[in-house]
């Protein structure tokens, strides 16, 4: 057992303004970090392949600092973190699919994103013609009177594709195994060699419902790498957009969760509010989802005086309407009967996986990037973080309700203190290789963007890690012991991203 290596831990205000200093570690140190992760002393933020090896982003909750560390591969192999720390397993499987790296002692060597349907194998490592692949082996199940229920990848509702393999005993789920990767878009490959403008566009298309958060994370990484001074007004406008996005998604989720318990009234009412948010966004920023509005250096759409009053009117309207819906939720016994106690996520698992967003916060993981790894403009406003300990569907609904209220407050604060001035600073290439890290709180949780630029200012490597990477595996754990008919409810309360995960 070797001692964990010394890493360069960086404070939020430093890594947001300056290029990130990567700590290189030897394979033994890498394995020791895996042990440290497994002990729960530090949290895994992300793991990705980057020549000439594998990189990993870590968070130390005690000091609120972040480190990025890298290990070189030897003969195409690196030690597996997943062997000691399960949250890394799918990240490693995806990295293996994309680059052909081997992870020594990996407990699950099956492919993850690569379903054998790509024209090329290992797209990030040259991309030779795909040799084909044996059929995917689902985990074997043995036992009395078990039956399997395969669901998807194409579902009856208009949602994204993903395959769920249930093993059930009667109505009770014994195991759920997910298979994802159906919406792989090759974004990491497309990023390679792209310029910053193109990269920002791609980042905004990783997951459509979080386009603001993704573009922001990418912009943060680029701004840190190139040490760009972003105008203050741009920060506030970004904050307003991000909170509008959070509002729209939480309102939509709130209705959709209730609708999965066949309470269509809530979906109807919440959808009206969500639509009003989107229309206000369209009026103020020129796009319903505010896509391509955040770019490295600032924002491309300014908020006019009319826009600001339009937003204030929207906030008043939601403050007026939303409590009625919350009361309806809280007073409908038949609805609470479905949500309370359903889909329980243990705080231990939430902590181990570093679950972000409402998934973690409903299970006692008190973490919010906006507060714990502060970035502008959240360092200039009062940020509240909702928290519950119950970890059931009801708790996840209540976190959303609280966050809607907090977002309303945040937008008001930002509108009140919106500084005047320019909104965009042109990024300038510095003629050397640079790396930057971006961490943004999207509505699902913390989105990580890692960006390496070459001397021409083009993207050498960009990895974007969706919060769903650490939430999808928890969904498998949550549904165990519940009945099959409650899966849609649990699933909607997680609302993980397929697109952001499959990249």
């Amino acid at each position, binding site marked *: 057992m070797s001692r964990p290596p010394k890493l360069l831990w960086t404070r939020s205000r430093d890594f947001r303004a300056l290029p990130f200093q990567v700590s290189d570690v030897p394979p033994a140190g890498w394995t020791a970090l895996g042990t440290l992760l497994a002990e729960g002393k530090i949290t895994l933020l992300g793991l990705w392949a980057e020549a000439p090896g594998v990189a990993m982003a870590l968070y130390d909750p005690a000091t609120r600092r972040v480190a990025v560390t890298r290990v070189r591969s030897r003969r195409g192999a690196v030690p597996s973190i997943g062997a000691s720390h399960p949250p890394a397993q799918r990240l490693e499987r995806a990295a293996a699919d994309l680059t052909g790296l081997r992870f020594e002692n990996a407990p699950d060597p099956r492919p993850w994103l690569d379903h054998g349907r790509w024209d090329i194998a290992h797209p990030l490592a040259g991309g030779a013609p795909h040799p084909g692949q044996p059929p995917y082996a689902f985990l074997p199940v043995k036992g009395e009177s078990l039956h*399997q229920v395969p669901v998807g990848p194409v*579902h009856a509702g208009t949602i994204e594709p993903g395959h769920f393999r249930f093993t059930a005993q009667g*109505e009770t789920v014994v195991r759920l195994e997910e298979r994802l990767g159906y919406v792989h878009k090759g974004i990491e490959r497309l990023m390679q060699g792209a310029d910053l403008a193109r990269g920002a566009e791609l980042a905004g298309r990783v997951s459509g419902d979080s386009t603001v958060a993704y573009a922001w994370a990418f912009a943060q990484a680029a701004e840190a790498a190139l040490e760009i001074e972003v105008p203050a007004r741009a920060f506030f406008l970004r904050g307003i957009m991000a909170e509008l996005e959070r509002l729209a998604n939480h309102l939509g989720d709130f209705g959709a969760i209730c609708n999965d*318990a*066949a309470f269509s009234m809530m979906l109807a009412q919440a959808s009206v509010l969500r639509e009003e948010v989107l229309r206000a966004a369209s009026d103020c920023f020129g796009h319903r989802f505010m896509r391509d509005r955040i770019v490295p250096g600032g924002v491309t759409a300014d908020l006019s005086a009319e826009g600001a009053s339009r937003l204030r009117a929207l906030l008043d309207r939601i403050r007026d309407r939303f409590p009625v819906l919350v009361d309806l939720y809280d007073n409908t016994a038949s609805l609470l009967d479905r949500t309370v106690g359903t889909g329980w996520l243990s705080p231990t698992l939430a902590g181990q996986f570093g679950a972000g967003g409402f998934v973690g916060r409903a299970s006692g993981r008190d973490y919010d990037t906006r507060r714990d790894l502060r970035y502008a403009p959240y360092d200039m406003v009062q940020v509240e973080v909702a928290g519950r300990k119950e970890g059931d569907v009801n708790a996840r609904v209540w976190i959303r309700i609280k966050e809607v209220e907090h977002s309303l407050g945040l937008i008001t604060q930002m509108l009140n203190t919106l500084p005047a001035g320019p909104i965009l600073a042109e990024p300038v290439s510095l003629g050397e290789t640079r790396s930057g890290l971006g961490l943004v709180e999207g509505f699902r949780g913390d989105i990580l963007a890692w960006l390496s630029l070459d001397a021409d200012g083009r993207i050498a490597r960009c990895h974007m890690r969706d919060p769903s990477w650490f939430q999808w595996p928890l969904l498998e754990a949550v549904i165990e012991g519940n*009945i099959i008919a*409650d899966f849609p409810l649990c699933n909607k309360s997680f609302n993980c991203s397929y697109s952001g995960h499959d990249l």
Partner: protein
Amino acid sequence: MELIGNLLLQGVQMFLVLVLAPGLTGLVRKAKARLTRRRGASVLQPYRDLWRLMQKEVILADNASWLFRVSPYMIVAATWVAASLVPTFAIGLEFSWTADFIAIVALLGSARFFLALAGMDVGTSFGGIGSSREMMIGAFAEPAMLLVVFTVSLVAGSTQLSNVVAFMQSDAVGVRVSLAMALVALVIVALAENARIPVDNPATHLELTMVHEAMVLEYSGRHLAMIELAASLKLLLYVALIGAIFLPFGIGPAGTGFAGLAAGLVFFLVKLVGGGLLLAVLETSVAKMRVFRVAEFLGAALMLGLLGTLLLFVSRSL
């Protein structure tokens, strides 16, 4: 000559339920849409859907047996016969001697039997889930229904619906606690039998939560049309049944003449619209219950039916 007239009237009754059934489904959907701030499809949409489905080709699974192909017709036939036995606008029709309460329960039971078999026939996992849930619901709903039958029949002194309705229209009924219990029990059974919220959700797209819809997932074309029609007929049957027993106004005897029959028809339509609107309001105001809660829900109906029956004996022996 009289026989021909009576047969004609019976024919009208059979035709009437068939024609009105999709309209009632359309009405419930429309009302639900309006209640959830949607415009909703026209009330006539179910007719258009049936017409469209009849035109479409049938896609059969490779391993579908004769049972899968025959079931839709068995289901629609059994449900149709059951629905046309329930007095709608007139009693004492030509075939009313066959309109036995227990026969209706048996006919619906047969339809359920075929539907559950058909759900399992192709061997998809959803069909199996749906069938097993449906049989669980049936196992609780049918005894409850029979106890309702017993209560009502003991009060009226007959299991023949025509006689029951005639008795209910007379002054001999009075105020009876047993009948109130039977009404509540019958409403619960009706909700479960028709796959409505809170037992099942007819509008859901979530395969994992379906009961009725899961069994019919593999059906298409005219087969699906038959099953949709049977579902509409069943809904109409229960609304008509509740209306006939507990709100027997306006149902005239067969020989009452044209004006009486027309009035009966109007009353029947009013009852259907009222029942449909009430159902829509109920469905928008509660969430669906957990699958295993259904047993408790229907258990309540069973106990109410049982209590109603027992109360009758208690009150008689005093």
